[in-house]
């Protein structure tokens, strides 16, 4: 006999069933067919572009070096290592470089990758630079210029010859990717460097190529079957952008991401304390410094310029340096997760960075600062205000581009300067506005350099020249933001670019750092550290770069991705995906899978969305109908 279910009971059941389907974990988990092994990265900075000529963020560079090889790559400690070129030799005058390109190397689409591709890419950049003065809006213009590249040729498929007019070795640290001529030469040169999006699937020689990209969401890369070297265990890499670092850390804890980049300091300490055996939290040196910059512009600007002539006086800037407790900044703002700053070269450039000798380092002392100010001719007036040489009380404007660390630093600096009788008006300014305020009359369009102090940061290359360059006189009106001009520094800058040996160059760069520290156009406040964390239950083989002081990813090049092993592989055997196949041998399979064939995640998304949405709407509509019918005929009059 059939059981009668009342309508009310039925609708309750229907709701319960809906909830069960939607909520029960066992029912909700998707069944997946042999899914690829995916390395899931979380970042809190978005990818801006896949076009190498347009990239800006470190995340962009990470994706770029996964897609493409640069001519000479980076080793575990950032030393030059095999890249697109296998090896190289240098002529005795130091100006001609001969690169050996691997025989039989292939692009990810199976086409041969030869010295001709390298020649084409480098020639393309040189031609564009000559024509427009720039290639795209990215940061790649400087590399051939700094290395002094004059001509490139490819006498045979495995030989590339580069001629320079400077005897330096900067050609070895170029960040310019080698692009496939058979793809890029078909594009209009102007469009190729600007509007071209470089859509997936990308063709490159790097270990992984982008097969799917959703701006502001994620980028998905698949293993390159033709990669020249060791294959990483991950079949795919998924780099997801998180608007909230908290969510990213929760996802890491739960195991929904394998690597979290940029963990907030408090959570980083918590991760360390939790000591989850599957999570490794690692603090690495970065290539960034934050500075308190002075407006050193030394000529009067009608209606603009600094509020006092004191800022153009090195003695005044030096004295203020004693009133900044850098250790307190590091402790109070970063909970100790940063390093005290001194020169314009970052700790990541350990081989170039030289701290001033101990007796020249400024140690925090309001007393010393006071004495130095008096000695330099800046007395206090009767009401305790510091006067400049025109007898005017010094009142400084202090700006920063909106970030909270900078705001905290500004607050502390304001309090220290107040103890010197110097009033500071602190205000966050939108970054584009600040960049505009800084512009001096030399800029195009001309500005008025209407600022006194600001806190901002710079990020460097592996080579120090770009961070040295922002302080030369020629850059006033361009990248210089302190408007500092020092002929001795300018001369040293040119000398180090022309130095023939690293030892000679290092000696010059040491002088530049000391001069910078003494003259203090900036007080370098702190070097931030990279706080990253990764899980070890799905992947093994993690290596830091630099090995002793770095973090595994988002450094230089993509070698660390190829070292990862599958932590759950039964036993590490030579045929397992984690182990190294001989170089230049495509993956053992007979017919190499084309990147991008991995699943229907791409095309199916909107369909699933619509099906899911329509399904839910239908269920809800059904419930509504049921509820309506409840007032059925028995209740009609």
């Amino acid at each position, binding site marked *: 006999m059939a059981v009668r279910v009342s309508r009310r009971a039925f609708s309750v059941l229907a709701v319960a069933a809906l909830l069960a389907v939607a*909520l029960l974990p066992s029912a909700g988990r998707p069944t997946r067919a042999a899914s690829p092994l995916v390395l899931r990265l979380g970042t809190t900075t978005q990818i801006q572009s896949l076009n190498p000529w347009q990239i800006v963020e470190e995340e962009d560079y990470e994706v770029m070096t996964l897609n493409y090889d640069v001519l000479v790559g980076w080793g575990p400690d950032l030393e030059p290592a095999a890249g697109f070129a296998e090896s190289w030799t240098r002529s005795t005058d130091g100006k001609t470089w001969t690169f050996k390109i691997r025989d039989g190397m292939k692009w990810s689409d199976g086409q041969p990758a030869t010295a001709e591709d390298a020649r084409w890419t480098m020639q393309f950049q040189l031609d564009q630079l000559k024509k427009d003065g720039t290639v795209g809006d990215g940061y790649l213009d400087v590399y051939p210029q700094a290395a002094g590249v004059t001509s490139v040729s490819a006498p045979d498929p495995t030989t590339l010859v580069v001629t320079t007019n400077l005897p330096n070795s900067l050609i070895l640290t170029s960040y310019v990717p080698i692009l496939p001529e058979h793809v890029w030469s078909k594009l209009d040169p102007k469009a190729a460097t600007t509007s071209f999006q470089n859509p997936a699937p990308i063709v490159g020689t790097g270990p992984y190529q982008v097969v799917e990209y959703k701006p502001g969401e994620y980028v998905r890369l698949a293993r390159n079957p033709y990669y020249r070297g060791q294959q990483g265990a991950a079949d795919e890499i998924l780099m997801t952008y998180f*608007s909230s670092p908290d969510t990213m850390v929760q996802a890491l804890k739960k195991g929904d991401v394998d690597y979290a980049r940029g963990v907030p300091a408090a959570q980083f300490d918590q991760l360390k304390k939790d000591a989850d055996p599957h999570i490794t939290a690692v603090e690495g040196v970065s290539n960034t410094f934050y500075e308190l910059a002075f407006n050193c512009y030394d000529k009067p600007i009608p209606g603009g310029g600094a509020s006092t002539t004191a800022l153009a006086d090195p003695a005044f800037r030096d004295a203020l340096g004693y009133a900044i407790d850098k250790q307190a900044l590091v402790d109070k703002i970063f909970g100790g997760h940063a390093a005290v700053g001194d020169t314009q070269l970052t700790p990541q450039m350990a081989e170039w960075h030289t701290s001033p000798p101990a007796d020249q380092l400024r140690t925090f002392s309001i007393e010393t600062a006071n004495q130095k100010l008096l000695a330099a001719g800046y007395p206090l007036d009767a009401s305790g205000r510091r006067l400049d040489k025109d007898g005017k009380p010094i009142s400084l404007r202090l700006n920063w581009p909106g970030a909270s660390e900078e705001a905290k630093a500004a607050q502390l600096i304001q309090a220290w300067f107040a103890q010197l009788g110097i009033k500071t008006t602190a205000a966050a300014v939108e970054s*584009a506005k600040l960049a505009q305020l800084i512009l001096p009359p030399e800029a195009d369009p001309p500005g008025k350099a209407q600022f006194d102090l600001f806190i901002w940061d710079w990020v460097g290359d592996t080579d120090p020249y770009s961070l040295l360059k922002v302080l030369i006189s020629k850059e006033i009106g361009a990248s210089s933001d302190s408007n500092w001009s020092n002929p001795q520094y300018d001369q040293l800058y040119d000398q180090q670019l022309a130095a023939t040996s690293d030892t000679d160059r290092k000696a010059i760069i040491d002088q530049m750092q000391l001069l910078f520290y003494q003259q203090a156009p900036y007080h370098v406040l702190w070097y931030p550290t990279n706080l990253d964390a990764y899980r070890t239950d799905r992947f093994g083989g993690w290596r830091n770069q630099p090995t002793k002081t770095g973090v595994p990813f988002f450094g230089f090049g993509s070698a660390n991705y190829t070292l990862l092993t599958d932590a759950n592989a039964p036993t590490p055997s030579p045929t397992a995906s984690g182990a190294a196949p001989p170089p230049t041998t495509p993956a053992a399979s007979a017919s190499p899978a084309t990147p991008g064939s991995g699943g229907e995640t791409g095309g*199916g998304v909107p369909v699933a969305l619509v099906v899911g949405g329509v399904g*839910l709407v239908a269920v809800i509509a059904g419930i509504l109908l049921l509820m309506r019918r409840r007032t059925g005929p028995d209740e009609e009059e």
Partner: protein
Amino acid sequence: MRGGYLLTKVTQAVITIFLLVLLNFVLFRMMPGSPERVLGRNPNVSAAALEATRERWGLDKPVLPDQFVAYLAATAQGDLGYSFFYRGLPVVDVLSDRIWPTVILFGLGELIAIVVGIALGAYSGWRRGGAVDHIGNGVSLILYSMPYFLLGMGLLLVFAVWLGWFPVYGMFTPGATYDSILDQTVDFLWHLALPLATVALGLIGQYSIVMRSSIVDTLGEDYVTTARAKGLHDRRVLRKHALPNAMLPMATLIAINLGFVIAGAITVEVVFNWPGLGTLTVQALETRDYPLLQGIFLLLSVSVVLANLVADLLYQFLDPRVKA
């Protein structure tokens, strides 16, 4: 006079949208600074590069009339320009991927909240002082006063991190391949559950409180007393006499809410990293992406105007007096 009412409302909506388009232009030109300078904060940038950038984005031309005319013409053709941040990716391409996730999340959230909120509110009001009223009202107040991000973070911590029943973020399992569209749909629903619950719970509180007080108001009305005096069944009095009148403020509230929901969307989406318009708005704001912000604001404001137009048109069915 129905045709006249319709015409008036549609004309009003068109004028409003035109004014929004104007405002959108003015607002974004009034912002401080010049975006290409941020691109230019680069030790490698040259004056030529800056000039080229300005030219590409039309910033080298005077604001009036050149930039304005170009903007109007392009907007009319559905061309919202190119994103600054995404290096020249068309704004329409960026937006199009982000609309559906938000529409589904908030469309469904609204729908669930309307059904459950109205039912809960009506029942509490009708059985004023009962157990459901006491508990329902208390819970509604808590839900209503709780910010979305707090509610969302709470649900995320309990159901995703501690219990591990749901994924922490996103719309699909990263890197998953699916045997069928059904599998994929299930995966989607599994990811949707927590953000949807957050949205729905937040709105249920609001709707049930308004519905309850609205029902309570009608209880003292003469027509309810009359209906009862006629000897109608209690439930019938509620459904046919009290509810339709109590629904009027709800219709207004829901229509107005469609606009505010987007503001709520921002925090819910950020908490669950849901790839919708909310997270996109935050991203565009962080990066000063004028064209993208312009596109988002235009889309949102136009949809609010349209939602209100629909509400106005519905109103004449709910309340016959409107037509008069």
